[in-house]
């Protein structure tokens, strides 16, 4: 299968419209073709994912090209921490057959939220020790 997802860009603000084109070429006409907007987690925890929007393409052909219009959700934003990162993606699913995915970034200001900031940890780690090993 050859497939391609071409959004206008890969970074969006919450609420913005995500537009673009998908194209594919398969050996047989797909029984079903849909584009999913989804998030998934990556990191230490087991993977979580959820599809929040999808666009189904009617009567998909063996070689086809379709335009899509989706809306970037308000939540959750793309973020990255020490244990968890959350990423958005677009996935073209052709059944039976294959799928193709690309990454998106959806966050205010077009910047992934960074959870690892020193200035956000006002109480030093030594505090824990002091609390445990009392004077």
């Amino acid at each position: 299968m050859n497939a391609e997802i071409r959004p206008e860009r890969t970074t969006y603000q919450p609420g913005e419209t995500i537009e673009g084109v998908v194209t594919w070429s398969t050996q047989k006409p797909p029984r079903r073709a849909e584009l999913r907007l989804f998030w998934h987690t990556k990191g230490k925890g087991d993977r979580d994912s959820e599809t929040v929007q999808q666009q189904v393409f009617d009567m998909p052909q063996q070689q086809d090209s379709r335009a899509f219009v989706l809306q970037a959700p308000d939540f959750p934003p793309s973020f990255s921490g020490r244990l968890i990162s959350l990423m958005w993606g677009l996935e073209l699913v052709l059944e039976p057959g294959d799928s193709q995915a690309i990454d998106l970034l959806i966050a205010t200001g077009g910047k992934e939220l960074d959870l690892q900031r020193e200035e956000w940890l006002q109480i030093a780690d030594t505090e824990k020790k002091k609390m445990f090993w009392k004077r």
Partner: protein
Amino acid sequence: MGWPFESAVIRSHALMEFSFGNQSGRPAGVFGKIGITVFFLLFLGMGLLFTWLIGHFLIQSFSAYQWKPASATIVSSSVGESKSSDSPYFAEVKFRYEWLGESHVSDQLSLTRQTYSSYDKAQSSVAALPPGLVRTCYVNPEDPGEAVLERADFWVGLFILLPLVFVVVGAGGIYGAWFGKDKASGTLSPQAGKRAKGGAPWVLGAIFTLVGGGILAFWFLPTLARSISSTTWDETPCMVISSRVKSHSDSDGTTYSVDILYQYSVDGKEYKSNRYRLFSGSSSGYDTKAEVVSQYPPGQRSVCYVNPTNPTEVVLKPGPGWSFLFGLIPLAFMGAGIMVMIQSAKAPRAGNSAGLSANGSQTLKPAASPHMKVFGIFLVALFWNGIVSVFVSEVVHGFSRGRPDWFLTLFMVPFVAVGLGLVAGFVYQILALWNPRCEIQINPPVLVPGQPVEVSWTLRGSVHRLQRFLIYLEGREEATYRRGTSNYTDKETFFRVPLADTESPLEMTQGEAKGALPVDVMPTFIASNNKVVWAIKVRGEIQRWPDLNEEFSVTVTGGTQ
């Protein structure tokens, strides 16, 4: 006191590289589907086989419902004994009946013979059918020489559900392998409206709770009550007929039980029983059983304890004994099931509570109340030490006989250490009940980044014992992952700001903090395995006493972006 975060510095940073940019999913190929099919065919095959076997048994058992009733007179009844090792006893009954003017005799109590491991159960069945008793029997009209006194209960038919579960799982798995959508396409994203994790944990928890609760309610608690009441049963002379250590072998190994058959009489009538205690069962450890058996050689005169309302119910040793601790296993099952159900119910859809009321103040409740902490650790300590004590008693027995089992002794050391730790934890939580209690109010109840928030606290109780008092707002990541059969959760704090830090009792008793979260903090995010949670933590140092340590969950919403 204000929070110094009104104008948080936003550092520029590089975007994280994604790991799956422009990659293809891997569909389950034909070989994969065949593999899955073979796996589920095993389920389906075993399910169908046992459905057929149980179905055949049920049809045979229920066929007596088509037979015709007739009057029967019991000719003789006694307890029979077969060569079966596990369930040798059965009710042997002979009865006479008339059918179309002809007299017949049958010795079939029911179409499927019920056997018992304990003598008194068979005896109880026989006692209900004394010679001379007239009652209804059921005659096969096609073969009048065949008749039974008892027909199978309809609830027995529920057994068919057990193999049918396997049939459904097997057939469902095969269908899913070939016709399922997501599984077949191997996509990164689940179908819309579905999440990667479903409600399976809740169902599993419900099954554990039902099974554990059922065993607890219908077996453990009634047996425990009878065991306790057996201490008041009538002391009656008895004579040992035979005694042995019975072995039970299966794929998990060999276990042993005490099997002492003894005879006693009540109101001039002779009875027999092989029940040692009401909490009977088999376990590893031959020596302890052999020691019991050696005290009851054949011909030995001893005493047994007879239920005054039912002379067939009798024990050689009254009271529950240590073996009843094994009965706590269903309690653990039920507890684990309830915990899983609570955790599943707590796991909401991924989101950040958008739409919650953002006005007015709200009093927060602690994540776990001090009493719940005591109760929780009490249950865990009871269960753990209950199980451990069974083995410790074996160790103590060994030492008292002068034949210590050193391997078991060393093996038990870490388990006993954990048990002692749990007892210490229980004592710690009991002491913590006397700590001051903190009440937290927050306005608005849902924090919005960039918007003002008021947090106020009231501390009640023996505040003067606190040497230092701290309240802080914390944001942290929680990642749950599975390793083998266990789940682990790692936590990492990414945000912590003090709301109060004082050594003055006056400031501890009551106070408030005002401020605003930075506009670019991550809101509350809850998914099945990954969470970003926010909480107000309260800490109080008390010398030579458990610290005050409470946590209050708060929600941070998406904000005003």
